C-alpha cells in the first residue's frame, strides 16, 4: 500500500507545511518508499507485547507545588517575530 499525492497533501496540512507542486511530487515518491520499508514491521507478531514508549520507565516524577520565578515577560518575548511588549501578535484569527 503506497501513498498517493492526495494523502501527502492532506498530511502536509496536518503537519502545517505548505509544499510546492514539485515538493508534493517528490515527497509522494520518497515517503512512499520509506513507508513501504516501514511495512517490514508488519511481518513481526507482536501479539501481547507491551508497547515501550520510553527507554527508562520511571514512575510518576513529582515535585513540590511551590511558586518559583519564571521567565520574565521581556525575555519570553525577546525572540518573537512580532509582539507589543505584552503579547505575541499574530494575523487576525476571526476576520478583520
Amino acid at each position, binding site marked *: 500500500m503506497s*501513498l498517493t499525492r492526495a*494523502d*501527502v497533501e492532506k*498530511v*502536509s*496540512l*496536518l*503537519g*502545517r*507545511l*505548505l*509544499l510546492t507542486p514539485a*515538493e508534493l511530487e517528490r*515527497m509522494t515518491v*520518497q*515517503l512512499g*518508499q*520509506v*513507508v513501504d*520499508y*516501514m511495512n*517490514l*514491521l*508488519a511481518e*513481526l507478531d*507482536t501479539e501481547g*507485547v*507491551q*508497547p*515501550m*514508549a*520510553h*527507554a*527508562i520507565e*520511571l514512575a510518576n*516524577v513529582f*515535585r513540590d507545588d511551590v511558586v518559583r520565578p519564571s*521567565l520574565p515577560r521581556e*525575555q*519570553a518575548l*525577546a*525572540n*518573537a*517575530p*512580532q509582539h507589543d511588549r505584552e503579547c*505575541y501578535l*499574530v*494575523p*487576525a*484569527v476571526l476576520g478583520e
Partner: protein
Amino acid sequence: MTLLEKTATELLADLAAGRLSSAELVRACLEQIERHDGAVHAFLRVDSERALAQAKAIDERRARGDKLGPLGGLPVAIKDLLCDRDELCTCGSRMLENFRPPYDAAVIEKIKAADGVLLGRTNLDEFAMGGSTENSAFGPTCNPWDTTRIAGGSSGGAAACVAARMVPLSIGTDTGGSIRQPAGLCGVTGLKPTYGRVSRYGLVAFASSLDQIGPLAQSAEDAALLLEVIAGHDPRDSTSVPKEVPAYSKSVNKPLAGLRLGIAREHFAAGLDAEVERAVREAIKVYQSLGAKVVDISLPHGKYGVACYYVIAPSEASSNLARYDGVHYGHRTDVRIMSEALEAERAALEHGSAGRAAAEAAVAQLDTPLVRMYRQSRAEGFGPEVKRRIMLGTYALSAGYYDAYYLKALKVRRLIRQDYDTAFKDVDLIVGPVTSTPAFKIGEKSDDPLAMYLVDLYTVSANLAGVGGIVVPCGQSNGLPIGLQLQAPPFEEERLLRAAAMYQRETDWHRRAPTLA
C-alpha cells in the same frame, strides 16, 4: 608532538603544572581553526574574544591559587543544538537563524562551572536529523581525512573538530547514532550515555525519548573526564535518572578482568564492508589477547531497528517541531506578502470557471490567514529532510495509521530491548562495527532518503533500547577511519570507558590525525 596533538588529559596536566596557560591553548585552537576550518567547516561560529576572556579569567584564578573545576581551562566545542544564554543557537536551521535562548542548558551550566572554555558552536544536520551533516542549512561539514567525503552526522562538526585537532573536547548529541557514527567516520572517540544519564534541559528536542548528550574526544580517558562533568540528575529534566555519577576519570584506566564480549552474528551479515569487518575482528583479537572471552550472541530484532526508529523518531519530531509556528520565536514569513497571495488565491477560486457551488467549496477549504502563516513560515524555515521527517511522523500518528505504525513500532521497540536484556545475561559488552562502510562521498546519498536511513543500521537499536555505547577508532581503509562500537547494559558507562581505554593502551589508532592541506 605539537600542542594540539596532545589529549585533553595531557593538556590538563600541562595546565595544572603551569607549563601551559589556558589562553595559550585557546589561541592555538583558534589558529588551527583559522588555518583549516575553511576546508572542514566543523564550526558554525567561533567567538574568539569570549573564549580568550574566559581562558584569561581562568588563568588569573589559577595564578591566585584558586581551586579550579575539573576542566581547568580546557576548551570545549558545543554542537549548535544546546542553549547557551543570549548566544545564537541555530540548530543548523534557517528557522532559528537568529534565535538567542534566554537560559543555559544544564550541560552548558556544568561545563562553565567546571571551568571549561566555550570555544565555539559546531555544525550539524538541521535539528540533528541526518547522518552526514549535509542537511545543515549552512553547508556540510567535510571529513578531515578526505574533504570530498562526509564527516558523518548529525554531530559531524563535533567529530570533525576533534579529528582535525582544532579542540580537545566536544559535545554532541545522539538520537539514532549521531555521536557514534561521526566519531567512527572521523576516527575519534565518542560516547552515547544511557538514556537518562545526562540532563536534556536546554537541549533543543528532536525525539525526546531517544535524545542523549555525550562527549567526543581523542581518547576514552578524555571522554571520561567530560562525561563526569556533564552527567547527573537534574530535576528540570524529569527523565534524568537520580543515580550517583561514578568518578569515571578515576576508574577509566583500571582494566576489566574476565571480560565477556558478545559478538552478534547479525552485525557481520551481508552488506558489511570487508575492510571494516577485518578491522573490527582485529580489534576483537586485541581484547582476546588481554584475556577477554568471546561469546556468539544473537540480536534477532536488530533488522527491524531502522524501520522501528524511522516511525518513532519522526513521530516524536513532528510533535516537538510543532512549536516552530512563527509566533513565539524563529522564522515568520512576510505576513503582508503572504496575505496578498492568499487573497489572490481566494479571488482566483471565486472567479474560476468551476461554477458557484464548487467555487464556494474550494474557498471554504482555503487556509485561514493564521494557518497559512504557520504553513508558509515552516515551509520557508525548514529544509527538505526536516520536512520529510515532519511528514513521516504526522502520517504515522494520523487517524487510521497510528496502530499500524506508531503503536506497532513501540511494540517492536520492546522486542529490541528484550534482545539486549537477554544478551546481557551472558556477556558484559556487545562489540561490533558502527557503520557498514567508511565515510562516503558528499552528495552520494542525498537524493535517496531511504539509503541514507539504512546507514543507521548498527546504531539505532541502542537508542531504542536506551543503552549506552562508545565508539573508538580501530583501523583504516584507504586512509579513512573505521570505528569499533561497544555497547553496555544501562548505566554501565564506566564499563564502556574502561574497556575502550584497555584497547587504546594497546593500539594507537586514536593518536592518528589527518594531514590537513
